[in-house]
């Protein structure tokens, strides 16, 4: 999609650039909070672009853990409603896995009956993605086809080529940012492009070599073969795997406050019994094992059927947060071996 020639940005020029951008936009970037990288509003602190991908995905800026859909106020028996407009944001340093998650979510929330709270935030956000040249220990994006190089969906794409960033634009909004701030950039050389390819090939090789994940076909086979009762026995029911997953998008809606209050939309998880339990008390997925099996089926069968894309982007976060230390890949692998 790159329709302008690639540019080059010095490492030293990045901060002046985002300083400039933060005058008109809220810049969200990986920063250190008590020593750990997190996505948060950038206020001039040191950037954590070299650190591991933060544990919490920047998808939360489109699908917050908890958001107010609107506020309601009752006056003389009549209700009035108010809604906050979305913030103009720029997210810096989004990795290809998270970018792919957003592509899946765009398909789910953005087509047919489009979901206004999601799409309005999407439209008001500029994504400056960053290719993964040093992948994290638990990542397997290459097996899921979502990284380490971003292919599309970004407004701007950075690749660290050692001496600075190679900058490519992927949308009119991206091009606009480049043009409006052209003084920070210089033209990229063929060496920069070559270095990008070299670094990404190395990263991909490293991820593939680890063989963390199975292929999607093997996973589908393994889902049928896995002893889900055994997984249930060991699962400590924290819900972390789905609460941290950038593709998981289930929510529940509730009104809080009478007569005035807020309609809230909160992140939900299908690993909880209450998620599928019906008013009568009957539960089509009564056991935790069935619910965990469903979670995998959703990622590897249902979402692909619906969107044509995998529901897993290989970010490895579900394993990072697993309280029971369930090694997902060895469980699935054992099932088919």
């Amino acid at each position: 999609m790159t329709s302008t020639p690639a540019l080059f940005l010095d490492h030293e020029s990045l901060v002046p650039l985002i300083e400039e951008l933060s005058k008109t936009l809220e810049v969200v970037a990986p920063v250190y909070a008590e020593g750990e990288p997190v996505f948060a509003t950038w206020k001039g602190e040191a950037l954590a672009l070299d650190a591991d991908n933060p544990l919490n995905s920047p998808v939360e800026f489109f699908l917050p853990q908890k958001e107010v859909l609107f506020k309601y106020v009752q006056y003389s028996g009549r209700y009035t409603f108010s809604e906050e407009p979305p913030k103009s944001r720029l997210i810096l340093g989004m990795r290809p896995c998270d970018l792919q998650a957003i592509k899946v979510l765009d398909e789910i929330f953005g087509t047919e009956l489009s979901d206004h709270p999601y799409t309005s935030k999407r439209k008001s956000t500029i994504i400056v993605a960053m290719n993964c040249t040093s992948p994290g220990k638990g990542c397997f994006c290459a097996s899921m086809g979502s990284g380490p190089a971003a292919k599309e969906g970004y407004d701007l794409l950075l690749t660290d080529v050692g001496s600075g960033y190679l900058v490519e634009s992927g949308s009119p909004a991206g091009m606009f940012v480049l043009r409006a701030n052209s003084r920070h950039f210089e033209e990229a050389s063929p060496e920069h492009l070559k270095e990008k390819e070299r670094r990404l090939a190395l990263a991909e090789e490293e991820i593939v070599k680890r063989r963390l994940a199975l292929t999607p076909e093997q996973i589908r086979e393994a889902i049928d073969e896995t002893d889900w009762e055994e997984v249930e026995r060991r699962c400590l029911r924290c819900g972390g795997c789905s609460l941290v997953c950038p593709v998981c998008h289930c929510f529940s809606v509730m009104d809080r406050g009478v007569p005035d209050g807020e309609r809230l939309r909160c992140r939900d998880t299908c690993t909880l019994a209450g998620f599928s339990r019906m008013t009568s008390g009957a539960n089509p997925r009564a056991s935790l094992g069935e619910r965990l099996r469903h979670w995998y089926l959703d990622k590897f069968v249902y979402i692909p059927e619906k969107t044509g894309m995998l529901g897993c982007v290989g970010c490895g976060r579900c394993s990072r947060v697993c309280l029971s230390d369930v090694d997902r890949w060895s469980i699935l692998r054992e099932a088919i071996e």
Partner: protein
Amino acid sequence: MEKIHTTCVYCGCGCGLYLHVEDGQVVGASPSPAHPVARGRLCVKGWLAHDFVHHPDRLKTPQIKRGERQVRASWEDALSLTAERLNEIKEESGPDALAVLTSAKGTNEENYLLMKLARAALKTNNVDHVARLCHAPSVAGLGASLGSGAMTNSIKSLLSADAILVTGSNTTEQHPLVAAHILEAQSRGATLIVADPRKTQIAQLADIHLEPCLGSDVAWTNGILNLIIERGLADEDFIRDRTEGFSVLRESILKYTPEVVERISGISPEDLEKAAVAFGEAPRAAVVYAMGTTQHSNGTDNVLALANLILATGNVGREGTGICPLRGHQNVQGACDMGALPTVYSGYQKVEDPGAREKMATAWVTDLPSTPGLTAVEMMEAAEVGRIRGIYISGENPMMSYPDRDQVKRALESLEFLAVAEIFPTETTALADVVFPVASFAEKDGTFTSTERRVQRVRQAVTPPGEARSEWEVAADLMKRLGIEADYTSPKEVMAEIARLTPPYGGISYQRLGISGLHWPCPDPDHPGTDILHRESFPIGRAKFFPVEHLELEVDPEYPFLLTTGRSLFHFHTGTMTRRVHLLDREIPRPAVDINPEDAAALGVRRGQRVLVESREHSLEIEVDVTGVVPKGTVFIPFHFNEAPANLLTVQNLDPKSKIPDFKRTSVRIRRAD
């Protein structure tokens, strides 16, 4: 969006987490990867720790009771009325007609100031908190045998154990992050022994599951130790060099043969032997226990029996060993450390010790009472007969959490003055003359001390709702009104005073705490903290063996079932917070009594039907859940639910040594409610 690193508000694990803040609202939570206990993980309550913070039910303005109603009041009116009424009662009936109940949910700084309020301003040692109902037997038992009632080792230390005995702890549900460490140790090869009459998840994952009947802990623990000594698996060097009283103990446990233990507890001699060999042969073995051990009328004896076991096997003072009482609240350890107990000042300095009293009196520029005060349940008894006339309660809900709810209600209603500081309206605030709206964990600075003695920062993420204030401000204000100097400008300043007067906290300061905090004892600013206690010696010199005997309990054929109470994974304590967290409330929306399938069949009840659970005095109607988790003859009710308060049935049957009530064993009968 900002992400504020703080400490979780629920159990004693003390996990580090981030609160996500957008436009002054807490909108999410996520685990802290660098935190030594959380390690990037949380339990389901932790993941949802943000959800209750902005709930519309939050108390936002002070309330004063006028006639039968509580009406909105100004802070000035609420504070001056409280100071006035407390002062009047003190003048008329003496200081011991007053009492303060502090909160294990509050910070160390708040507990310290409330303790100071009671002692320096009100001049009474009637100060206590919920630890009385959970780990008083640990403080009494381990204090006597080892010289300190706290967890001897860190949570991380469990990773290097070769055998772990978990007893009276539903660890996977109540301390999930400790359970994660235990299960990780097991996957590295440690033998996991679980003793629990219920088939909890950790019991099902155990290598050896002992299923003793309720009230037989001393018998089977003595039985295991008897076998260990018989097999020559005791650590004779350790016994000789570091303990005293072994020969008397040896003599006393001889009668606990596997056959005797089987008769008392129902544990087969084979299982007992397997457990004894696994524990005795392990180079490093640890004991983990919680309320299932302590909440008995012989709770202290249960603790002493476990202490004997680790001492006789030399499992103290090394990585991978130790005895680990798991604390139920995130700061119940801290509240004890801060002297929110009737007998001690902060750092367990005894009020009866003239030296300690002199030191505190000088620092606080006042005189102090010398006789120990009443414990929490004793306060209720005293209130009922008019000996206590005024109580200040900070963030506790005795109406739900204390035994014998009817008696608690009578006691609180007979008070002339009751002030309650809370975040939400509760069954207890409903009875108050003054209600103070206070800040939740997300709205204040301070420190919590976790179950492993780790002192950690709590960081303010948002401002309190409405007019609510941090409770350290409320305590300081009341003190000033009662004539005690208390010009604190921040919790940091309070911590500086705590460090000055509390030897184990001597080296604690906010600058040093960072993300991981510090384990006390940390006596000076250069001290790295102490993750493992008793490495070289015990605070009392030599550790002591205390022989303890099985207590034969009567069984009333009229009331053939044994009721045991506790918590569930998805709710916390009296439900004040978790029942306002949408996903948690949806997961377990209603109370139910767990009944074994065989019992259910005999009673002719099915899941979802309602039964009456009756004790000698009271009766409770509740839905049935039929489950093999409870053994035949035992039923379980969680105490989260106001609709069916489990503590209506429990009685104030106190352990004579620690004054803890027996929450874990009440005789009841059950019949269909139709």
